[in-house]
């Protein structure tokens, strides 16, 4: 049995190795910039269709992440989706007539909310509602529309031809 001092030293080194690994995991692997990430102000927006949008999806302005989606629920009165978003407190100069759209990251990526700033003079603050929204593009609807348009242009061509 090793002496008590050796044991305590080894245990101390063990604990130190654990803490060091935790720090590496925190900063290098998960990119933790601040532990207290929950500060920010909350705004909402209504969408007809949110597509694949999920909680914790990023909110981006000009491609830069400024917050995340915190809640999604259905408005019982007009059956539209209400998305609650938390915006970083430092980004407090978004004009309140900006629009929010749900876009897809890359070809196969997840959905996120993009905010396009406009030219208003007052800014979004806690509790504001984004008035202008563009819903997500649903692939099936797009294909349906595309086929419908093709059909229409085919018909109009042949129609004209038919009537000649």
């Amino acid at each position, binding site marked *: 049995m090793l002496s008590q001092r050796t044991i305590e030293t080894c245990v101390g080194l063990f*604990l130190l190795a654990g803490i060091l690994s935790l720090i590496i995991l925190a900063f290098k692997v998960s990119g933790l910039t601040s532990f207290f990430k929950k500060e920010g102000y909350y705004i909402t927006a209504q969408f007809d269709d949110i597509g694949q949008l999920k909680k914790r999806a990023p909110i981006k302005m000009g491609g830069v992440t400024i917050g995340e989606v915190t809640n999604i629920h259905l408005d019982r009165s007009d059956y539209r989706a209400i998305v609650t978003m938390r915006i970083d407190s430092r980004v407090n100069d978004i004009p309140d007539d900006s629009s929010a759209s749900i876009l897809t990251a890359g070809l196969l990526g997840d959905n996120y909310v993009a905010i396009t700033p406009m030219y208003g003079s007052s800014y979004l603050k806690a509790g504001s509602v984004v008035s202008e929204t563009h819903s997500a593009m649903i692939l099936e609807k797009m294909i349906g529309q595309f086929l419908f348009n093709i059909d229409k242009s085919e018909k109009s061509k042949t129609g004209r031809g038919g009537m000649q």
Partner: protein
Amino acid sequence: MIAQVTTLGRLGIKLLRDYGKAGILLFSAICYPPNIRKGLPLVFQQIYAEGVLSLLIIMVSGLFIGMVVALQGYHTLVKFGASQQLGPLVALSVVRELGPVVTALLFAGRAGSALTAEIGLMKATEQLSSMEMMAVDPIRRVISPRLWGGFISMPILTIIFNTVAIYGAYLVGVKWLGLDAGAFWSNTQSSVDFQEDILKGIYKSIVFGLVVTWIALYQGYHSMPTSAGISNATTRTVVYASLSILGLDFVLTAMMIGGW
């Protein structure tokens, strides 16, 4: 027919009594912790015996697992042109699942079986009885420090496993397969969330640590005091602990994904 029902009933009651004994053991070990002055050195000794001595197997396994997952992952991802997602793939697999589970399984095999054998041997050579007759509570002196030792060692081992595994993936992905180091780390950082992934993995490892140590101590304490009894108890520790880890992993993951 009656005989079968009686046997089943007896088995059920025995199972219930065993769970009761295990619960009492856990309760006494937690509620009568070793007193600070005399007991803390004992706890340190146990952290050394269970944690520090398991470090080698954990680190080597972590390295190899990280390297293998990276290798396998790369060959599949490259077909979708998504090879830059290798970092997130390995990091999330390890931190969420492989880290806590594999560390717990290895811990059960190495430290758990050692604990059971040690306690079983102490019981067979009447060391625990003589302690009791000398008016020293064997639960406080022997069982409780080992429980705390396992409880503290397991999360630390898991964290070290995670780090070594991700580093192993980095070695394979960047140094060997030629991925870009900057892309590796930045993709990983954007996919891994500290509170959601890393912390929840650590919570899992804390639960696993408690359960594995508890099972090991129970099996040792209640083993038959013969050599056959001790070896059976050691086998049972590894089997029950492994099954519990995998079952609990599912339950905990379901709880975490569904939101607390």
